[in-house]
């Protein structure tokens, strides 16, 4: 719903701004086993036109819901200046915390309670957990770029209406192996009706949201 709203805004903005571009980039994300990977954030950085030049969209507020001891969504892309509100839809308490560099916080949400809106003003990634429930984790991705896409269940992320030009496509995923460089790819959009497909294969660590079976370690 918020996504839809965001897309509407984006579409209105580009339509008002000038010519309509029809160039398209489809990014396909899979893991080492070939399974589609969802929740991967692809960021396009144009080399020809600096992003600063485009008019920055108005600041938005996003809700991170907590339902069934799970943060929803898993990954949320922000632009600097956007706000985030944590809402507890469960019947248990949640102690939401983050030690991330861009924003450190820690508070308890009673059932049905929502947090005050927090502004995320610097780019970066904030990992947010619940100190009561170890498996609960969500990532706040504050992107420096305007062109961001998140892969869906089929591992597909889509960029429409791209201007022709040279882009660097960076990909990030919460389960990317720590200590390894984020994969990035340069893509050239030749014309306005150009349609490109980009594939990424990621090697991922196990999903921390899946509860770990401590009694049966896998050695």
């Amino acid at each position, binding site marked *: 719903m918020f996504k839809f709203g965001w897309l509407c805004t984006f579409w209105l903005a580009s339509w008002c701004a000038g010519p309509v571009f029809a160039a398209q980039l489809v990014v396909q994300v899979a893991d080492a086993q070939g399974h589609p990977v969802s929740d991967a954030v692809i960021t396009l950085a144009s080399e020809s036109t600096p992003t600063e030049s485009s008019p920055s969209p108005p600041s938005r507020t996003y809700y991170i819901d907590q339902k069934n001891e799970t943060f929803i969504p898993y990954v949320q892309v922000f632009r600097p200046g956007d706000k985030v509100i944590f809402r507890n839809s469960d019947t248990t308490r949640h102690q939401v915390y983050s*030690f991330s560099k861009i924003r450190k916080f820690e508070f308890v949400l009673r059932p049905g309670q929502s947090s005050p809106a927090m502004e995320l003003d610097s780019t970066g990634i904030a990992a*947010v*957990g619940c*100190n009561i429930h*170890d498996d609960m984790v969500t990532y706040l991705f504050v992107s420096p770029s305007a062109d961001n896409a998140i892969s869906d269940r089929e591992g597909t992320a889509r960029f429409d209406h791209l201007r022709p030009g040279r882009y660097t496509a960076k990909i990030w995923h*919460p389960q990317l*192996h720590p200590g390894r460089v984020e994969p990035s790819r340069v893509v050239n959009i030749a014309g306005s009706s150009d349609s490109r497909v980009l594939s990424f294969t990621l090697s991922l*660590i196990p999903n921390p949201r899946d509860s770990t079976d401590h009694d049966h370690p*896998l*050695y």
Partner: protein
Amino acid sequence: MPFMGFRLRLALFFVATLVLVQLLTAGLVYEVTRRAMVTEGERQLTANAAAFVAQMDDISARVASNVEVLSLDYALRSAIAEGDNGTVLSVLRNHGRRVGASRMLLIDSDGRVEVDTDDAGTPMTTFPFPDLIDRAYDQRTAAIVAIDGKASWMVVVPIYAPQPVGLVVVNVPVDDALLTHMQTLSALPRNVELAAELVPGHWTRLASGSRHAGLVESIAAVRHGLPWKPLLTRVKGREYMVLAQRLKQPKDSAPVVAILGYSLDDALRPFRSVVIAWATLLALGLGVGLLGAWLTARSVSRPLEALASAVRRIEAGDYHVSPITIRHDEIGQLAIAFKNMIESVRQREARIRHQAMHDSVTDLPNRLAAEATLDEAIAVEGTTAGALLMIGLTRVPEITKTMGHAICDRLMRDSSQRIQRVASGTYLARTSDAQFMLWAPVCDQPEAVALALRVLDTLNESYQETDLNIDRLPSVGIAITRPGLSRASTLLRHAEVAQFTASGSSSALSFYDAATDPHRPDQLSLMGDLRLALDTDALALHYQPKLNLASGVIDGAEALLRWDHPQRGSVPPEAFIGMAEDSGNIQRVTRWVLASAVAQARQWNELGTPLRVAVNLSAHDLDDLELPEKISRLLAIHRLPASCLVLEVTERAVIGEPDTAIRVLMALAEQGFAIAIDDFGVGQSTFAYLRHLPVTEIKIDQTFVKQLATDANDQIIVQSIVDLGHRLGYRVTAEGVEDQGALDYLTSIGCDHAQGYFISRALPAADLSRFIAATGDSAV
């Protein structure tokens, strides 16, 4: 001794078989057990190796889960996230003690060491095993590494806050204590050691369990690489199965393996009591077996030994043995067969002995038995005189030839029965076809004669059968035992000699006379001596002159053989001529006599006193067809006329003799030799018979001449012979002239020659020459 050997062999065979079977069984059981132990060892080792790994994993899992709990500690998370290393260090130290870690590290995702609880050891800036970090996010990660010559466990756990912010490394030492602890917790083998290849190709022991057997050192020395499969080897003189087990390790660590050992000696220890029990049983079985073998062998060999001793007794002639007790086995059967055999052998031997010792016709003892009995009797009654009668039936050979053996056998049977009837208390035997022997012990000469007469009387009755009447012509020779005459054979011979004498005499009864016995043993050597004498010219011829009664001149001489025996002295011709005839030596004697006589005749011829030399020929000489030729050759050699030689033969030599003798005499006469009949008048020859012979001279036997001077009958006989001889053309010589009267009478009746002691005894040739010269002188 051979039976002892048999028993011993049998017993030894039993015992050897027992021992062999036992040893084979023992060897088999040992080998089977050992193989089972080896197989069991392999199985156990393989299982133990897996168990060891599982146990290690279990321990590391416990450590890891501990650390995982730690990683969720909010204080630690915040301290790590905020870079508060001091707090992190204290938390890690605290936790390290809880999990038994010797060292704990906090490293970031790139492997940089941020916190290290061990400030004493080698400082670490970068975690040396990056592959462990890589793996740590995907799975729980633990591995064995060798650091500073010690084995330890590296457990790597990522820290989420809530995203991965670093990793905690727990270092748990794997030392002797841990291994021992593991052994007490589970059924791990007592021999577990950890080894690391700190220097390539060389394995060093890092830790060992409760028992340090030196497995690593022994394997390192073998240099065949590590035994990844169970391997049977000797470690310090003990047998072990060893197995090397790889452990989970990071790439960059020196290789570390677990060496597990399975002691065969330990495995076999429970069987030691079984072995002792078995050995005891074997010894016991051996003893019982030996005893049993000995008893069995004895039960077999005892009767066999009894049989053997029975056989030995039978061999010695004792048949009265009841060899064996009754048994119902094979030996019993053998014993019964043996008993039957002894019985039949005894019967057969008795029969054979009887046959050997008895005459089948009369069933009397034969000569052999008689001799034996006689020997015994003489030995027992050596001092008493006994008489041995040899009873001969002279006509038996004749009867056998003309009427056959059957009649002869019946006759002998009848004779034996007759003798037994008249000679009770004596011992009768048949010693030859025609002779019986009767032994009368304790019998002097008169008694012997009486006995002999009784025997003769009964045997003189002719033997009668249907249409048959046979005279037996019995004769009896008697020999009386003398002290010192100990041999039966001698006595028998004496009796036989006596019987032979008796068969020729009218009385048909004769005692043995040693003097007339020509068969005395001492005579036997005489022939050898005679041959020697012939070869060495030890004989000599003496010449008895023959006086020509008409002229009163000695014109002839009879050559008489003289033998001066070196031991016996002078041996008279009668003592050896007969024997020489019997032994076939007479022809040599004659040849020698002829040669000497002819040579002497030549000598006399050359001396101018020619003498006619008379030589006596034996009846045997007349069997030689070449004799005339030989004599004439002899004379030719000496260039003498045949008339020089007179050949004298006895009546017996020519009467009833075969053609050969007559042909020889004829041939001699044809060659001009004079032939004289010696000893005329005592034999059975008649003038009628002599007429057929080429006789030129007869010599009247001295028995008629000796008393010629006084006995009128002799004078008549001699005169008749001289008259008749002259009328038939014979010259007549009288022998044995011993006085003047006889000589005168002979001269008066015209006898041609006289010969005798009165004229001269026989003289050596030289003496004769002198004698002739003397008489010639006296006559002239």
